[in-house]
């Protein structure tokens, strides 16, 4: 395979997750392993390569449900909203706890809580639906990303 400059890139499997990379005249050892994504370590950087079809499928499922999902395994500390309640973008809708940190989960947009998918005290897994949002009547539906955990709000305890 070639990159734009025409320099050849060779990859030689060395076994046990190790790969010799020869990029032009530069040689490096990379490491890689596959789970759902492929993880690659090269020169101090880590890349996760998601299979395009698989990634698109996962994304569209989340969009369809307009659900807020858990970004990581965590315990639900508090739920600040109930079904039918209007929320605004950036409202703290619940608080998760993971690794001794409190993680406030904020609403990614304005909307109405359709359903709450977890209980206080529950251990939720990544991708688990925390909350479903629906649009107030007559408004345009926007895609919903994963739960947003804004900077500087991870409170150490």
């Amino acid at each position, binding site marked *: 395979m070639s990159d734009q400059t025409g320099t050849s890139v060779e990859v030689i499997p060395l076994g046990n997750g190790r790969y010799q990379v020869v990029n032009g005249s530069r040689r490096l050892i990379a*490491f890689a392993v596959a789970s759902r994504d492929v993880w690659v370590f090269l020169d101090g950087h880590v890349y996760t390569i998601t299979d395009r079809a698989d990634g698109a499928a996962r994304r569209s499922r989340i969009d369809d449900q307009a659900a807020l999902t858990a970004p990581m395994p965590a315990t639900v500390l508090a739920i600040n909203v109930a079904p039918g309640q209007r929320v605004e973008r950036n409202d703290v809708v619940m608080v998760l706890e993971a690794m001794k940190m409190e993680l406030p989960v904020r609403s990614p947009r304005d909307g109405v809580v359709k359903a709450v998918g977890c209980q206080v005290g529950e251990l939720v897994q990544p991708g688990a639906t925390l909350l479903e949002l629906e649009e107030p009547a007559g408004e345009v539906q926007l895609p919903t990303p994963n739960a947003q955990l804004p900077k500087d709000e991870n409170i150490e305890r």
Partner: protein
Amino acid sequence: MNTRPLFDRILIANRGEIAVRVIRACREMGIESVAVYSDADARAVHVSLADHAVRIGPAAAIESYLSIDAILSAARQSGAQAVHPGYGFLSENSRFAAACEEAGLTFIGPPAEAIERMGSKIAARAIAREAGVPVVPGETPSEQSDAAIADAVRRVGFPVLLKPSEGGGGIGMKTVRDEDALSATTAQARREAVAAFGDGTLYVERLIEQPHHVEFQVLADHHGHVVHVFERECSIQRRHQKVIEESPSLVVSPALRQRMGEAAVAVATAAGYRNAGTVEFLVEGSGDSARFYFLEMNTRLQVEHPVTEQVAGIDLVRAQIAIAAGQPLARKQADLAQRGHAIELRVYAEDPANNDLPQAGPLLLYREPVMPGIRIDSGVTEGSEVTVHYDPLLAKLIASGETREAARGRALAALRSYPVLGIRTNIPLLIALLEHPRFIAGDVDTGFLDAEGDALRAPLTVGPPPEVTTIAALVRAERTTSGIVRHGPVPSEADPWSSLKGARV
């Protein structure tokens, strides 16, 4: 020479890298180790390495690693004679230290009274002041009129912080730099203190600008000997969590080192301290004219103790065990010296490109670099499961060299050969930090990482270079062809992998 071990069996009341560290020291000293574990840690590295292991409860720390009853019962059950608390968890709990002694177990740490005394910031400050060690100047004026506050401000010296006396967490703190702003800011600080805490009483404290966080390791035995083992510079912090520590500190000159070391010994002596401890200071300025102020004393082994071990050639965990067994310190102050430079980098399971979000999951691939001048203290191995229940510290990489620059070069080379796959870690951020011109110049105060953090993180979200997408395609092919591993280069233009160039991150 008497070769009988100091103890027959020690219980380590901790987990992760520090439990592994203590277990290894026990083995070197011919002492049997007893690991304790929660249900989440049944297959953890510290459990597999210890001579004995006792389950102490469910995953939640409050029911396991923080349960005094569970740990004492494990000690009884295992026949341990002494308990090493590590750091965190129960290590600075004076009730735990006392309960160990009452149960006939030697607590490998300071006496319960010393933990309690130094655990109170007010009492610790009073002890330091009585020992003639400077503390950050400050007072709560007994009269709170504008004139009395202004007098206090002049005694303390500009710039000052006006803090709600009842407050905490930085709420309602106001900086005053000169006389002009004094009366207006005093009125405002008083209003905010009333609004936030229902009490307008103000505490006046000198503002230390761009301080360095420098701490001194001390060791004290049961025979009246107290020594310091030099300093650690811990100014690279993220929201008060240390990320990089090093020794020696670039702001500490030999004369300042002597003064600060004597101050650390004076504080430890006045506190009736025994075993290993750390005296923390804020340093203002640098060189012989720098000023230092006592901050607090940590009555435990520190996470960053390896940098001291590397430059002073002393094993602090062995020293702790020997002191607890009643042995006198092996070396006097005059026998201790610093040699070369050491830098410790904390490898955390968190995503630096995503608000440092803690990560959990399996370590699909985990290979520690083995190279000259590199020490790794870790509590995980390939296949370990990182859980949400505990601290996200995976490992500490300690690089040593003849000079700071040599140690920095070794640290960079090692981090670039330290693959951790399956969860995100802060390794890319540590590399960016080590390459930052201000770090290279040693120009880092405690505000450095919070100020430069966004710029350091910006390059962490770049897409994969072509060789990475090639590797990914190769890995997928290896997986799907189950067992048919291709050997040799994969270079040809007609090669099917080149069509996968557009794979997405």
